[in-house]
């Protein structure tokens, strides 16, 4: 980088630091910071634009994130404010989408397909004696294979009460039926050294991991064993693995 480039960067940085040193209390300094970084908030809001929300609303949400970032930023830390602000703003946008729930974000047609897949999967698996193909599921659901794939993808990202409901009438029962011992606890000890967070998992999540990775059961078999839908097993697995990788920390 040229010397000129560096000096421009450092001038910005100095202005930024000077403004932050006048906080809290100096509303003019705060306003100036907001103005400086509003383009960043708008830019990030646009990245979430194609999810069916008016852009103005998203800019609003991103601006709240920016204000929070300004109020919480510690100028003594060796972090660029823009980096810190981007993380906070994206967090705010993600929270916005998460809080609004599946019902708003997922088109109605896709919700219906998702529910039908949920019902059809165990039936077809039983009939065929194996896991069905997407085409077979599509034919039974009177939907296109693309819609089935979209529903599979959507269920990962968004939670929904109806898809979380147990398939049978006694969703929680199987764990109790097994008796007092929880083999998953003991066996997951093997993972404790490489993924310490495994100890923090709720019993059901731990049990799904155990059945998949230690007993080698398929998702449909786990669904039957644990008493939830296969789509729910799918989401438990992906979210639990993300949690063990530490990804949840970034969102909280």
């Amino acid at each position, binding site marked *: 980088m040229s010397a000129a480039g560096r000096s421009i960067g450092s001038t910005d940085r100095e202005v930024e630091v000077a403004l932050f040193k006048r906080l809290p209390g100096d509303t003019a300094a705060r306003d100036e910071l907001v103005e400086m970084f509003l383009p960043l908030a708008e830019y990030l809001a646009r990245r979430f634009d194609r999810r069916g929300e008016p852009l103005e609303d998203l800019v609003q949400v991103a601006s709240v994130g920016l204000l929070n970032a300004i109020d919480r930023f510690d100028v003594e830390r060796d972090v660029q404010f823009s980096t810190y602000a981007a993380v906070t703003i994206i967090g705010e946008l993600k929270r916005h989408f998460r809080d609004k729930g599946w019902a708003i974000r997922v088109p109605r047609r896709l919700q219906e397909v998702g529910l039908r897949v949920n019902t059809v*999967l165990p039936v077809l698996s039983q009939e065929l004696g194996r896991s069905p*193909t997407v085409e077979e*599921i599509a034919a039974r659901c009177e939907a296109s294979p693309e819609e089935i794939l979209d529903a599979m993808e959507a269920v990962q990202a968004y939670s929904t009460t109806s898809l979380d409901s147990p398939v049978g009438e006694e969703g929680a029962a199987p764990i109790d039926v097994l008796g007092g011992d929880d083999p998953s606890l003991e066996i997951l000890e093997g993972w404790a050294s490489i993924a310490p967070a495994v100890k923090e998992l709720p019993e059901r999540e731990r049990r799904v991991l155990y059945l998949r990775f230690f007993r080698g059961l398929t998702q*449909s078999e786990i669904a039957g064993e644990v008493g939830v839908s296969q789509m729910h097993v799918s989401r438990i697995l992906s979210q639990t693995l993300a949690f063990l990788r530490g990804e949840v920390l970034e969102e909280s």
Partner: protein
Amino acid sequence: MAGPSDLITVSVPPDSESVQVLRAVTASVAARMNMPYDGIEDLRLAVDEACAWLLALAEGATSMTLRLRPMDDRLEAVVSTDAAGRAWPPPDLEESLSWRVLSALVDTVSLDAEASGPSIRLIKRTLEPSRTV
């Protein structure tokens, strides 16, 4: 038989938001090969895990690439980034959660250091192995 023309290549920015694209493309190709639902789900999870593993080491990378090669009875998926100069494959593989997860989800996993950067190769059979359990 699989030839170069059967190769599907998708490149995305090296960030976690883009993983969804690679996951969806993988699922779509696997579905067209008539892979059973359970197998597609496993492969999607595996692509997720492989991407997360590479992204953790992707500082300085400009792209993440997925190459899919459908074969008669299996689908090969190779995920890579152009993060150069990383120690890859990492030592103590058995002590890595990602390695264990991937080994359980697909039939074959291998880690390679390509000239352009680290890569993870996954192979999933399209036919479900007969189950005796």
